[in-house]
């Protein structure tokens, strides 16, 4: 059924919003607190997230057919090969190709994906640190009544349209 992901995601969001507000969860804040005051309260949250997600994927892959591409660097190549065959591209999948999601998703050049990961990751860390929290934390702060965070969310939403309208075609033209 088409609506299952949307309905499930609103409930996932409800649980995340409640717990995130109670725990002051922030993924950038963990690293920032560690650098600035050597506090590991939030950093433990990041590591718990990594460990539990990995455990979840390892366990659920035996139960659910949706995780058949689980060790992505090993099994993800088949997804790329199928997509390239449909596009008429001949190339062999590399270990470094990422999970789909960046603007040049199905490009066979691993180097271009690494350049995007370096640029995007650095900008993400830097601007989130200046803004005072990761995007998730800003949503929580907006719900707590911070006017700065509410305006942040407006900019965040407009950024998506700017990215897909102007930045993504530029990246494709430069790296493709």
């Amino acid at each position, binding site marked *: 059924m088409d609506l299952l992901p*949307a309905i499930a*995601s*609103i409930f*996932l*969001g*409800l*649980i*995340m919003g*409640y717990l*995130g*507000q*109670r*725990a002051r969860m922030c993924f*950038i804040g963990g690293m*920032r607190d560690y650098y*600035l005051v050597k506090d590991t309260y939030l950093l433990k949250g990041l590591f*718990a*997230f*990594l*460990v*539990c*997600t990995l*455990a*979840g994927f390892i366990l659920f892959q035996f139960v*659910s057919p*949706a*995780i058949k591409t689980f060790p*992505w660097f090993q099994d993800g190549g088949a997804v790329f090969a199928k997509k390239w065959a449909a596009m008429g591209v001949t190339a062999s999948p590399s270990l470094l190709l990422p*999970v*789909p*999601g*960046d603007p040049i998703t199905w490009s066979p050049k691993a180097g271009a994906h690494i350049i995007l*990961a370096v640029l*995007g*990751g*650095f*900008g*993400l*860390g*830097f*601007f*989130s*640190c*200046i*803004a005072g929290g*990761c*995007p*998730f934390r800003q*949503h929580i702060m*907006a719900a707590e*009544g911070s006017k700065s*965070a509410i305006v*942040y969310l407006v900019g965040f939403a407009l*950024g*998506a*349209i700017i*990215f*897909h309208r102007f*930045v*993504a075609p530029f990246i494709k033209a430069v790296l493709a």
Partner: protein
Amino acid sequence: MRITAAIAGGIFGLLGAAGQAFFHVIPPPAYGICIACHMRDLVNWIAAHIYPIYGLKAGGALIIPGGPVSYNFPLLTIVGILIGAVIAASVNKEFKWKVMRVWWQRPWAEFFLGMLVMISALTFGGCPIRTALKAAYLDITAFIGLIMIAAGVFVGCQVLRKLT
């Protein structure tokens, strides 16, 4: 019981994996929890239906950039998070209108910071949460992304020390 960040992070992790395993939040893989991507899907879906800003395909279908799972109806994680956090804040009496005191966190500056964070996040293909989720899915570029996020936060902290 007091909820610490470690407990919350663990529950988020299981939810992220379960979202893909049991609730069909796929394709793309490792998409169970993401703030930037789900916000992008929601905004693009609404924008393309009001005004076909990205154009039409040859068959007349709308072009909606984003995860294929959100093509017919977008994921509503953002709405859920906002409602859940409002419930948590009002039940525990922590809701209060406020503005940050430092100048780079005043609303007008946060508007542009939000835009820059979204553009960087989509360049890489995910917010910090999805970067961690992709790293747990054993995607090697996501590890590079996590290291670069740590580097970015390190430089940001040096700048924050200069500013304060």
